[in-house]
């Protein structure tokens, strides 16, 4: 691949209520950011399954961004709380299976943070560019995907905590 011409491919999973709307605002405000990122809209960052991310890497994404509402600002109260817990853990796991941590990034962008959205996309694009192309995706296969669901202990803990809070 020609390093010069190579442009990273980035997938962003964003929640419908905050980040997606924040991106709309960036648009209506004509803020500029690189075109490398494509967004997949979900209802809540809590519904983003780690498998989605692995799939994205499998499909040759060089980086993945997850973004939802700010903590406490979740449209669904607790959804992004789950997301956060899950991601902390998943981030470690990613490192473990050999994908650089920097390829998966998180941010909390509210519907009114168009500027932040543009900044985050620019930053993520820059970061991923610096990491270079993700070439291991051919090696990835569903083994990883299968591997993930085993991690229940942590989830357990998270769930129990949630019970106390809700």
């Amino acid at each position, binding site marked *: 691949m020609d390093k010069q011409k190579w*442009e990273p*491919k980035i*997938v962003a999973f964003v929640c419908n209520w905050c980040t*997606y*709307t924040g*991106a*709309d*605002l*960036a*648009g*209506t405000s*004509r*803020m*500029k*950011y*690189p*075109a*490398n990122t*494509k*967004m*997949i*809209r*979900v*209802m*809540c960052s*809590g*519904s*983003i*399954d*780690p*498998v*989605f991310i692995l*799939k*994205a890497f499998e*499909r*040759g*994404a060089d980086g993945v961004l997850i973004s939802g509402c700010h903590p406490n600002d979740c*449209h*669904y*109260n*607790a*959804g992004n709380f*789950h*997301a956060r817990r*899950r991601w902390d853990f998943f981030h470690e796991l990613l490192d473990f299976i050999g994908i650089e941590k920097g390829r998966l990034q998180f941010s909390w962008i509210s519907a009114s943070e168009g500027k932040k959205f*543009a900044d985050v996309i620019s930053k993520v694009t820059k970061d991923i560019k610096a990491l270079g192309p993700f070439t291991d995706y051919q090696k990835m296969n569903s083994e990883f995907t299968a591997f993930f*669901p085993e991690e*229940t202990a942590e*989830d357990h803990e998270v*769930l*129990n905590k*949630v*019970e106390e809070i*809700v």
Partner: protein
Amino acid sequence: MTVRVLPGSVKIFSGVEYSTDYKYMCSDPGQNLIKEAIHKYRLDAIVVGSCSPHMHERTFRNAAVSAGINPFMVEIANLREHCSWVHDDIESSTHKAIELVRMAIEKVKRDKPLTKINVPVTKRVLVIGGGIAGIQAALDVANAGYEVVLVEKEPSIGGHMSQLSETFPTLDCSQCILTPRMVEVHQHPKIKLLSYSEVVKVEGFIGNFKVTIKKKARHINEDLCSGCGLCITKCPIKKKAYNSFEEDLAFRSAIYIPFPQAIPNIPVIDETVCTYYKTGKCGMCVKVCDRQAIDFDQKDTMLVADIGAIIVATGFKLYSIDKKSADSKYKGYGEYGYGKYRDVIDGLQFERIASASGPTSGEIKRPSDGKEPKKIAFIQCVGSRDDSKGISYCSKICCMYTAKQAMLYKHKVHDGEAYIFYMDIRAGGKMYEEFVRRAIEEDDVKYIRGRVSRIYEKNGKYIVKGEDTIAGMPVEIEADMIVLATAMIPQDNAADLARTIGVPYDKYGFYNESHPKLKPVESTTAGIFLAGACQSPKDIPESVAMASAAACKTIILLSSDTLEREPVVAKVNEDLCAGCFYCKKVCPFGAVEVKDVKDINGIVYKEVAYINQGVCQGCGTCTATCLSKSIELAGFNNEEIFAEIAAL
């Protein structure tokens, strides 16, 4: 971005039958273009590359419907806000636009037709709590023509407002404005008042709640009693129980009506002190009641009601400085004596003392010896804004009621001196700052900025050790009486009730609104609304405004016979479900239920998750949590999202 090239580029993707472009797709001619294409090419799904779905998704779905295809077979590629407006580079943005359209195409190919969910609506509202907020909400809803069930845990409605003397910022008498409202509730043909009752169970979902209410035994037959009060005057047990309405500044008899204006005006027998329940003797009340209304054998009864919407208006409680148990999240004030000094009272006690109908008939007297205090100190922010005592928030109303009380004191004790120790004066409201200035300028109330460190008794006086942080001088005042503006905290059982009815609450126990700015009276549970001080500390004007808003929201809900909901809800594949119920634990709305799966013989062989479509809000948290991938969120299922990813 070059729009021109798009139709040709996307045409080559598999499944695409037709593609075109138009300048204003959302305009009528644009919509007609879509409809014509659907007919002409017998399309079963469409992708619109346009502006944000938040803008025109509905427009295009309606167009699809009128052309005969399911509205959920429409996907929008956001080419304006997410592409053309944000990228300058023509080549890359055009490329991105094509990919966005492809993703939408891949998704729409897997979309399934969905139908909106219709749920019927029961046209009856439950109001929990009969303070001013509950009263206002009940009256508004009833006046709109809907039935209301008002549940109040105390023997009478009225809440805290019935205890107040005069109210800021106008200094009008609380009872005078409240009593007519209470009577109206009592007489309203659409309101069923269940006093001395509590909600014990809430099942169901928006439009279709089933609520179980426990009616506690008053030991009086409400249908027979005329409220003559003869039983009360004759009851020999007069001083065994503190009068909680009078904030323990007076006693009451074993059979009592909490206060003269009580609604309903029917007594209650306090089993814990009544001689009959102790020895089986007495029965004086029975003898004097010529209507045979006394019923010692009366038992608690359970009522079940079908309810369409719920308004929670359970109010607040005042923090007391008593020593708290070790496991309490609050701590008492040892430095102020843990409540051992009788003349160190709280705000509500002062309200009773200043109240014309109170234990002192409105004369300012101190509890220990009944003397008129010549020097009075008020201390603000007691409990509030105090991390170490467990309450970090500002109680919002105490600055105002303290100013009011100092004024009332000065109006009644002309030669008295009033000092207020404060940290900040928070008087944001119409005529509020003016009110505080009046206390300072006209009534000569002395405000001293600084938190008091200690109170102790010395020769019948109370030494208040403070610091004037503005002057930078220590201050010691020998006061005759001290009024603590203690914090407004949630009711004792606030968290329990929240769990019973299914509303979320914050770390203190106040109920959470759905959005702090734009949905302030909705709880996050559909069909449950909030009013008054159960949501956060509030004064009367705010409580009433919130109550009317909540009433209005329920009226909107009840105005249609059925509710239409977006079909974006989760559904469990029962064959796959392992019955681990992680989904149940994470669902923020309690939408997941346990369902028994039976074999042909009717024997339960496993339990699976079942999602109540009326309750589910479609967040999808459960889908990501389910390890066996047995839950799908309609419109955003894994297959659809994988397809989008695959289209990258």
